[in-house]
């Protein structure tokens, strides 16, 4: 058996933080992605420009830089906003919150493209049929359009989630106690870098495999209404 010098529990605690960060970021990213895709397909030029600018900038700069910009920038932006309301205590944005915002923004930018493709893949007849049945735009969206978009978008979103899971490691750079940082701490006291980074790598690999199984289950579930052949 491998000797982890009692750091096994620490690494598992780190894994919990990594999973939490990934799920919160996924939630933020999915909302941003749906909003982004709607904006890209909007008939208002301004909305299209904003969405285009968002996806171009976020996809063009390194994720690590996004994390650093949010971590160092969010504090000053929040304090400037709070200052407008007459609040001038020091506000600090923690590593976890900064990670959720930065990874959510990244996921959202890529998800925008996935959702856009999926929205465009829904035949026009589906919209017309829903309207003919007297559904309003909101009911039409969540009853008819969203379930179909979900099915088309799932494989793409699944891939993005795997990327997101690996990107969570970057937040350890600004001090979040995830798998990576717990491994760093273990390395600094045991002087066994290869062992602990390899264990960390296999923990990420295990999370990746679990996610892949879950995504394929979701894909099956989402297409249960579809007859084959």
């Amino acid at each position, binding site marked *: 058996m491998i000797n982890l010098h009692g750091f096994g529990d620490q690494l598992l605690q780190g894994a919990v933080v990594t999973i939490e960060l990934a799920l919160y970021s996924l939630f933020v990213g999915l909302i941003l992605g749906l909003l982004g895709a709607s904006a890209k397909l909007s008939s208002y030029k301004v909305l299209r420009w904003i969405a285009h600018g968002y996806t171009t900038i976020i996809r063009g700069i390194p994720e690590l830089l996004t994390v650093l910009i949010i971590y160092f920038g969010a504090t000053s932006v929040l304090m400037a906003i709070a200052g407008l309301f007459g609040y001038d205590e020091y506000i600090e944005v923690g590593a976890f919150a900064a990670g959720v915002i930065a990874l959510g923004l990244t996921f959202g930018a890529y998800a925008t493209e996935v959702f856009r493709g999926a929205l*465009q893949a829904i035949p026009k007849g589906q919209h017309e049929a829903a309207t003919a049945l007297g559904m309003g735009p909101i009911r039409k969206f969540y009853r008819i359009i969203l379930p179909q978009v979900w099915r088309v978008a799932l494989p793409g979103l699944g891939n993005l989630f795997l990327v997101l899971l690996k990107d969570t490691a970057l937040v350890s750079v600004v001090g979040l106690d995830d798998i990576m940082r717990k491994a760093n701490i273990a*390395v600094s006291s045991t002087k066994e870098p290869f062992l602990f980074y390899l264990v960390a790598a296999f923990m990420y690999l295990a999370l990746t495999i679990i996610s892949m199984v879950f995504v394929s289950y979701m894909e099956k579930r989402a297409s249960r209404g579809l007859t084959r052949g």
Partner: protein
Amino acid sequence: MDISVVIEYFPRLLEGAWVSLQLVALSIVLGGAFALPIALARISPVAWIRAIPFAYIFFFRGTPLLVQIFLVYYGASQFDAVRESMFWPILREPFWCAIIAFTLNTSAYTAEIFRGAIQAIPQGEVEACKVVGMTRVQMYRRVLLPRAFGIVLPAYGNEIILMLKGSALASTITILDLTGMARTIIARTYTPMEIFIAAGAIYLIISIVIIAIFRQIELRQNRYLGTLSIKVPDKG
């Protein structure tokens, strides 16, 4: 916002960008060279030959690049055998450790791209080559490789952009690439937003240039398809 800091330190940021470009170029070239044999082994008819590249690709695509860099840079030094070996002068240098980690990483992704391209060429084209009496070498040189190259291009361009973004991780092992340089400047000036945004803008410009170059190569490579009329999909 204080623009004068950006102007003052802009030459240093460009120095960092140059290091980033070197990292990307070297890893892409080395990674591409490794990727071809990996891709060919991956589609081998023999099961155990297929299994090795499968495990390799799965490991490097399933774990964070940050872990891979740390494994090479910090991990290798755990073993006395490595420190006493002839490779130590290389493994001691952060720059070469980054190159090794990036090369291993990008070769796994690129191998999958190559495999996809090789498998995407229709069987009919191979048969057509044989029917007109081409030798095997002629077939590869005139038809299969140019075809595979054309199929690979868009995905390969993406991979280079991903590598450019991944190269920012070199800053975590003390390399003064664009991100590393930005962090060093900030430690001196305490102006994180100005410098990070300037660095982000430089990354963005490099990505845009790479995308533009690849679009030109793609147009040239696929010119036999004639003028492409791009169909605008129906809205909603």
